[in-house]
């Protein structure tokens, strides 16, 4: 039977279990009493990988995991203490196991020496204090073999209570040779004492057939504690032995059995190799292609398909009714056709969107690996940092997930290396010894935000400016007027970091400018806030091209636009008295003790409208990255959920617009991008 179709499942499951294993190990605190649930979870993760690997014949993986599992089993049974050395070794072993699995999956070359070294260290730890070697079973005693056996089988009365059936075993015995069975009825009770669930019989069985005692015992293995069993060879009389064809002597039988076993083993090995090879070929193709999808997402696709089928049947109906000779019918036919095609179009788009939505993955895929990074860097740098994760379920497109990992990793390394102080420095500064690194992800507007916050030493504005001056990145004039935000942004500039500052932790020859480039390549933005002595907050804003968001419908002239509801502070009607004209700054709206720049949308987009005066329309106040912008429109309608479609992928990037959506009536509305609108306004003023 071909089991190779399940190999992909095995690798996916193993990857998940490796993750669980690592997280569990990171949570394992040698200073605390061991949490049995935690150690069980870790044990099970290893156990599952071992079981699966064994089933597919990945013996290297299975043997390696067995050693890890044995150590974990000892911890589980309170036979071994959790020491930092144990945790470190198991973490390294986990990495090694990951490599073994990768190698098995991709047929890659493997650093067998490194693996062997870890394996030896596992073995040393296993044997070091307890000299346990569970694989080693005592050598099998040489089994007697004979042609005839006498078996006395007395089941305990409750044997059937474990689902065992003495008749089944007797039938199996008959597979080994001819049997003569005599039932012993003398334990049968009086009818009044008879219990139908219990066994009162015992059997005397004579078995005629060349088999070993072990073969017979095997049949009774499941019930050996539920019966009294006596197996004895019947010594054949000399006369009978002479008359019969020579029976194999015990030695002979053993020899034959050995040969058989050898053949079986060789055959199995070949089978294993075949399976490994075919498995590898299969998984090569599957690598990186498979994706786990939430069942709800699949349901909505199925829903879409249902809608499409309905539309298709409407269209088929129409075709049947089609009669080109009847001018009256033709007119109504055209209308019906148009509406059906509209419907088809809408459903197709929905389907497309839902299928694309399957590509959305929670950011925990990326966040997951940072626990280990922080743990490793803490021991390497002699720092104490706790990692807190928030919003791990925030979804991002698979492509973004794949590409955001490296920049995030770099920012975290950077924060660990430069941001956090040593415990001594922290104590001196009046902070808790253990620092907190917070990774926070959330959706806001049409964007995904990822924050990396540390409570470390913060950025030193003056130091940054001085360094930028020294490197000639900024002029002395700029330096004087530079805002804090701009000064912090300097660390992201090419040429700011130099080789001498690169440590082996955050360095790796890649500067923060590469991080910025990577994020900008995803149409993202990096914002840095910092306070000296308090900490640094690096926020990455990424556009969410496939989001569904709440939109406020507004109109200008004949056009309808959508404004993200989250960006709207309020909407109001204004009078001329509230507006100030300021040279160089355009129009300002005096509103709640603030002056807000006004953007007239019809002017910005060059649209015709009757509502040109401010008192004839509505002003929508938007929040743009903490600043406000008043946008003047003709009128506002209702709110509705809209699916954001990218313009860039089909057309090009348009200033002030983040995408488009299809409204309920089938018409298209552009979705406004508040950030970009604010930039448009600033540029138009200058």
């Amino acid at each position: 039977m071909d089991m190779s179709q399940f190999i992909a499942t095995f690798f996916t499951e193993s990857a998940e279990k490796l993750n669980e294993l690592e997280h569990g190990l990171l949570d394992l605190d040698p200073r605390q009493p061991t949490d049995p649930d935690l150690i069980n979870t870790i044990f099970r993760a290893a156990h599952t990988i071992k079981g699966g690997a064994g089933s597919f014949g990945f013996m290297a993986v299975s043997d390696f995991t067995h050693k890890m599992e044995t150590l974990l089993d000892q911890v589980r049974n309170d036979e071994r203490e959790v020491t930092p050395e144990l945790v470190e070794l198991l973490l390294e072993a986990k990495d090694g196991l990951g490599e073994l699995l990768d190698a098995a999956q991709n047929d890659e070359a493997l650093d067998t020496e490194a693996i062997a070294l870890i394996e030896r260290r596992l073995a040393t730890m296993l044997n070091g204090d307890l000299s346990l070697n569970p694989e080693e079973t005592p050598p099998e005693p040489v089994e007697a073999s004979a042609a005839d056996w006498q078996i006395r089988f007395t089941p305990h009365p409750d044997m059937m209570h474990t689902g065992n059936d003495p008749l089944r075993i007797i039938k199996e015995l008959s597979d080994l040779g001819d049997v003569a069975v005599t039932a012993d009825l003398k334990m049968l009770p009086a009818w009044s004492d008879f219990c139908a669930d219990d066994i009162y019989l015992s059997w005397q069985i004579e078995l005629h057939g060349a088999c070993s005692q072990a073969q017979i015992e095997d049949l009774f293995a499941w019930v050996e504690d539920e019966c009294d069993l006596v197996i004895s060879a019947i010594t054949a009389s000399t006369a009978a032995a002479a008359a019969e064809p020579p029976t194999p002597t015990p030695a002979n039988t053993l020899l034959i059995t050995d040969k058989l076993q050898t053949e079986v083993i060789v055959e199995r090995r070949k089978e294993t190799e075949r399976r490994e090879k075919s498995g590898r070929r299969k998984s090569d193709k599957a690598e990186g292609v498979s994706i786990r999808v939430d069942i709800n997402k699949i349901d909505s696709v199925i829903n879409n398909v249902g809608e499409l089928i309905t539309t298709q049947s409407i269209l088929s109906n129409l075709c049947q009714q089609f009669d080109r000779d009847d001018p009256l019918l033709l007119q109504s036919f055209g209308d019906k056709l148009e509406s059906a095609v509209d419907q088809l179009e809408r459903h197709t788009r929905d389907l497309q969107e839902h299928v694309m939505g399957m590509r959305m993955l929670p950011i925990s895929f990326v966040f997951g690996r940072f626990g280990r990074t922080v743990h490793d860097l803490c021991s390497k740098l002699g720092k104490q940092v706790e990692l807190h994760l928030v919003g791990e379920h925030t979804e991002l497109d698979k492509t973004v997930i794949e590409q955001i990992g490296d920049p995030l990793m770099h920012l975290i390394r950077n924060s660990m290396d430069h941001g956090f102080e040593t415990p001594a420095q922290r104590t001196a500064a009046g902070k808790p010894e253990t620092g907190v690194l917070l990774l926070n992800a959330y959706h806001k507007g049409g964007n995904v935000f990822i924050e990396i916050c540390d409570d470390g030493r913060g950025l030193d504005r003056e130091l940054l400016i001085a360094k930028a001056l020294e490197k000639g990145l900024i002029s002395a004039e700029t330096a004087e007027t530079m805002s804090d935000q701009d000064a912090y942004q300097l660390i992201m500039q090419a040429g700011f970091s130099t080789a001498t500052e690169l440590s082996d932790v955050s360095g790796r020859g890649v500067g923060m400018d590469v991080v910025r480039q990577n994020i900008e390549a995803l149409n993202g933005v990096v914002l840095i806030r910092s306070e000296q002595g308090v900490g640094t907050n690096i926020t990455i804003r990424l556009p969410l091209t496939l989001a569904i968001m709440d939109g406020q419908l507004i109109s200008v002239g004949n056009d309808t636009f959508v404004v993200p509801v989250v960006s709207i502070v309020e909407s109001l009607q204004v009078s001329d008295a509230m507006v100030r004209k300021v040279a160089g700054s355009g129009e300002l709206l005096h509103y709640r003790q603030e002056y807000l720049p006004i953007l007239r949308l019809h002017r910005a987009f060059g649209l015709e409208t009757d509502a040109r005066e401010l008192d004839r329309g509505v002003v929508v106040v938007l929040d743009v990255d903490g600043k406000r912008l008043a946008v003047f429109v003709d009128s506002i309608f209702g709110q509705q959920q809209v699916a954001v479609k990218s313009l860039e992928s089909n057309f090009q990037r348009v200033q002030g617009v983040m995408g488009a959506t299809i409204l309920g009536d089938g018409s298209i509305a552009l979705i406004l991008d508040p950030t970009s609108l604010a930039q448009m306004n600033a540029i138009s003023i200058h």
Partner: protein
Amino acid sequence: MATILAIDDSVTIRQMVAHTLKSKGHTVIEAVDGLDGLAKAKAGAVNLILTDINMPNMDGIEMIKQVRALPAHKFTPILTLTTESTSDMKMKGKQAGATGWIVKPFNPEQLLATIDKVLR
């Protein structure tokens, strides 16, 4: 053909077991842990139970004890799937009420042979 309840937290093992059994025409009910297994054992007629031991939420040992206590499953064959080649786990399963065991890793033929043995 029999209805077989297969309980294992490893999706790989579950799929393999289910595929093997279904290929011989058996009906397979899958459960992801002891708790799930217990619920499914209570829910309907099952001729045979195959269960892993190490599972989250409720382990196989506890599940076997509880299933065995149900009148409907007083005599139902229950086989443990165990990687432990040591007699320890096998015996723990037996003491809880299991009929026997199948040692992992097993190939489909071994699985089917063992199952035929208890079903015939």
